[in-house]
């Protein structure tokens, strides 16, 4: 069993640099990241992460789209040098270890932004 602290790891999403924020300048969304029993709601306004909430502490968590995988999958995805098959969100999709739900338009229309943003916890 991995000992992933999701909120701690997801805090790295606040470290988007100016270039990444500019890349996501049209993104306004709430992204739910679920890792097994843990979940975080990440609020993004104009490419900047403005809030991160523990979804399990919210009475009515609201989000635009959700990324759901196991703790183990996120732990491997966020290793500094992930192994083949664990190195990209679409690799997880292909192995049916990630589900993306909800209004996926913001995600699919800003793939470079979200792939780079969600890779930030790798350098924690």
């Amino acid at each position, binding site marked *: 069993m991995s000992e992933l602290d999701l909120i701690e790891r997801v805090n790295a999403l606040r470290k988007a640099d100016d270039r990444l924020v500019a890349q996501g300048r049209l993104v306004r969304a709430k992204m739910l990241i679920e890792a097994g029993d843990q979940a975080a709601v990440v609020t993004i306004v104009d490419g900047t992460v403005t809030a991160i909430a523990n979804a399990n502490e919210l009475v009515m968590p609201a989000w635009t789209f959700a990324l759901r995988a196991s703790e183990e999958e996120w732990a491997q995805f966020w290793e500094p040098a992930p192994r083949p098959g664990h190195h990209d969100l679409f690799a997880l999709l*292909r192995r049916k270890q990630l589900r993306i739900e909800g209004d996926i338009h913001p995600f699919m229309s800003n793939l*470079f932004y979200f792939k780079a943003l969600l890779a930030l916890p790798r350098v924690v």
Partner: protein
Amino acid sequence: MSIRIEPVTARYLHVDLDGRDHRMFVEEAGNPGGVPVLCLHTAGADTRQFRGLINDDEVLRTCRVIAFDLPYHGKSSPPAGWQEGAYRLTAAGYASTVMAMIGALELHRPIVMGCSIGGRLVLYLAADHADRIGGVIGLQSGGHVDPYYDTDYLNRPDVHGGLACAGVVSGLIGPDSPDQDRWETLWHYMQGGPGVFKGDLHFYKVDGDVRDRLAAVDTSRCPVFLLTGEYDYSCSPDDTRQVADAIPGSSMTIMTGLGHFPMSEDYASFREYLRPTLTAAVKAREQLLEEARR
């Protein structure tokens, strides 16, 4: 100022495909009397993916390397009237295009090397056209891929198609590929026409399930070499292993560190795998031609 001109010649060739004239972009380099090696690019891309190979002096000494852009791709135009319908690549259409190009270019039993959709197509050629080709090299060859993301997002007016296509494939490149080559490879995807990558995926994910045809491949008539990068999750090493298992006599190598676009994302690493494979493919072709002469 330093100027370097590549040893590449490019031409436009007109060929009739499916009853319609097509203006096709073709480039080549190498020994004019050498072994013809015909290269097929991936879905949604073009011949620039082979820029490393077509400048590889060691290969060019013995081979004539030729690559063409599929219709709608790179500098090959879509046929007249394209605006009336959606582009969709089919197994039959793709195979007939490649065979028409082999005929138009008067290539005598070329080694056909294709990547991804091209890696799939060469399996059809090995099954159905063994007498007209001299062997195949499948890069990232798999028998079939079920859809694993919503391809509608690759072509819709409210999403930038170039960024969506490149964003989808970006993770297929090996993580240690040189930045310049990674981003050039993605640039090709960013430049694709609307709906072209998605149309190619019709072959890759719907119409081009080659698994039932693999039993027809006879490696004594058409040698088969398979090279697959370990970071490819679209055509994974397991997918290629299944193809290799279904074709007795085929050769398979999994390439460390490489992904879905080996010839484009990191040619320096890829050539270490390609050169010995090409040497073996040339030798196998010579044996085929020798047997044909007897």
